[in-house]
């Protein structure tokens, strides 16, 4: 019988944590500040909190959650539009589980479902294509959010729907690209960090070479990491070493799955079906060429073009998800955290997705009952 963690892991991880803390403290002596790194992948946010890595490094390394959770970075207006798509009786709306409870200005997809709308959780957009095939009389709309990890799968779904010549399948895509937002964080938002813990999943698609601009333009080190405690700790160790020696590089610490040029098949799929566009990020605003839209050639599958959806400007709340995403606030600095905003009644998206910084903090770092 296996246990939640393998017995050999704890010893290695503990020793590694000790080394990380030692090097971090030497870095602080040398530079005068606690070294700070930003993770830009929701799975890292969750894994760092859940495995206790963040807790054990507290006070030695400042781990800041960046814009890595696909739901959290989605602009409020897009969420409202997606919920609006579900408002019509003849539609079946399919989406990833995370999206169900994200609050729109008026309601959530979950409440739309409770009121009788046909909203379904699927694990893959391919399942939504199957649903369209099985329901030829109804429009099936897939709500697609995600980074480069998810876009190839979205593309594959459109490809499948095109092959099957489905007339009743479309996608409302609001997808994001990692590199433009990293650049924006460093230039416009001026986040104070010493390096990036680079995303494992996105890098499988993009490849290890994709981040060289961080070193060339900003002298900012980055390490691509996996998600096990040992993998994350060794990535953080490598970041610290580069900071200490002042020799920034991009390193691939997840070589078992990330190749230097990424996944060319996935990249080709993305380019065939999607084209870059200016995209609004929650709390950041519009970043030029930071998103992807379905190419005009495949407009028949673009729900934005198929349905006319009008939504007003979203109302402002005290929610600080926008600051959270840029690493400018921690969950506990938000007045709503744990009080008005909990996973049961989320105000902002960071509390909804298990990968959101607030949800991860609420589930794994909260000390009070």
């Amino acid at each position, binding site marked *: 019988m296996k246990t939640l963690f393998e017995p050999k892991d704890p010893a290695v991880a503990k020793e590694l944590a000790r080394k990380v803390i030692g090097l971090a403290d030497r870095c602080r002596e040398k530079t005068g500040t606690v070294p700070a790194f930003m993770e830009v992948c*929701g799975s890292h946010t969750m894994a760092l909190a859940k495995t206790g890595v963040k807790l054990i490094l507290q006070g030695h390394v400042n781990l800041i959650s960046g814009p890595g959770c696909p739901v959290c970075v989605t602009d409020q207006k897009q969420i409202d539009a997606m919920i609006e798509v579900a408002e019509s009786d003849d539609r079946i709306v399919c989406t990833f589980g995370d999206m169900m409870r994200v609050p729109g200005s008026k309601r959530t997809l979950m409440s739309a479902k409770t009121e009788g709308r046909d909203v379904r959780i699927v694990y893959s957009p391919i399942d939504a294509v199957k649903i369209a095939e099985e329901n030829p009389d109804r429009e099936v709309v897939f709500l697609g959010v995600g980074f480069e990890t998810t876009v190839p799968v979205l593309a594959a779904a459109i490809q499948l729907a095109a092959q099957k010549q489905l007339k009743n399948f479309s996608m409302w895509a609001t997808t994001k690209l990692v590199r433009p937002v990293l650049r924006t964080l460093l230039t416009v938002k001026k986040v104070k960090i010493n390096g990036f813990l680079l995303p494992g999943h996105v890098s499988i698609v993009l490849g290890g070479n994709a981040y060289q601009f961080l070193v060339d333009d900003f002298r900012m080190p980055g390490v691509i990491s996996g998600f096990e405690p040992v993998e994350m700790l060794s990535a953080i160790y490598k970041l610290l070493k580069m900071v200490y020696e002042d020799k920034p590089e991009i390193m691939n610490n997840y070589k078992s799955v990330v190749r230097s040029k990424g996944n060319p098949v996935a990249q080709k799929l993305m380019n065939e079906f999607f084209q870059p566009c200016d995209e609004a990020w929650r709390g950041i605003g519009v970043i030029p060429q930071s998103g992807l839209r379905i190419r005009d050639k495949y407009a028949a599958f673009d729900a934005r073009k198929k349905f006319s959806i009008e939504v007003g400007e979203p109302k402002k709340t005290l929610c600080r998800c926008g600051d959270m995403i840029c690493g400018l606030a921690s969950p506990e600095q938000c007045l709503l955290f744990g009080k008005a905003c909990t996973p*049961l009644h989320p105000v902002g998206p960071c509390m909804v997705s298990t990968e959101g910084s607030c949800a991860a903090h*609420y589930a794994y770092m909260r000390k009070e009952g």
Partner: protein
Amino acid sequence: MDRKITLAYGDGGELAHKLIQQIFVSAFGNRDASRFDASFLSLKSGEIAVTTDSFVVKPLFFPGGDIGKIAVSGTVNDLAVAGAVPLCLTAGFIIEEGFPLADLRKIVRSLADEAAGAGVEVVAGDTKVVEKGGADGVYINTTGVGLKRSEGAIDPSRIAPGDDILISGPIGDHGIAILAARGELGLMTELQSDCAPLNKMIDAVIEAGCDVKMMRDPTRGGIATTLVEIAEDFHATFELSESRLPVRDAVRGACDILGFDPMYLANEGKVVMVVAHEDTQKALNAMRTFSEGESAAVIGQVTGKGIGQLLLETPLGSKRRLHRLSGMMLPRIC
């Protein structure tokens, strides 16, 4: 008989009679009692325990069980963990019009077999048929009656630092098995639900003379929610060790993919116990003689009194506080 349930089966007439005689009475073997409107139970002196539970599981048939089996194990386990010896139960069926009779027969047979296996009698029952769309196949309610143990009574007020926390086997099997059986998430696994009555195994632990101070079956909300409730209700600090919690590869893998935490997944055939340290080995030995308890393990200790909280020691040695499951667990994106 028809191949499907129609509304006429619920009208109390000839068809209802046939349904009850051919499917229910024949399975439960209680022809004598079924002629009266109520059953009479002869009880020894002492206190009785009563519990009730409704079952709406979807799908009705899943690897490792079906709604009939779970309707017995759920109620029997509630009695057993409360410190009672389960004696008998009632079964109420709400059936959707159009439901295949063959499936109903299978479910009733499974319920009868499980009850017989657990040594409890089905002493009363009821069927209602609702129109198509009014229910989802079959719902079952079971009410169980048990006799409170005179010896080896559960007394959570005696929970004290040094006590061990035990679990009868790997966590999360039912949650993942059901999710996979729904076929919505593209999960393929041979994992079976752990759904099973545990009263005989629990009997064995008590009869071995173990000082069990508290036990509960960690169903919905999983082991974390169950232990948070006990810790808070009885003002004790529980510390679990992540590296000692048994979990199957299939469950861990599915959780990694979907973003779930095994600590919050439902179990239907597990018991957690707070046991006096000197009796821990005895309790483990007793559980391990049963297939339901072959992987029984110590997963943590009671470390304090006064503050009610559940802590988890991560493999790195840091301790984080666990809370109740908050809302539904939803599969994540990537």
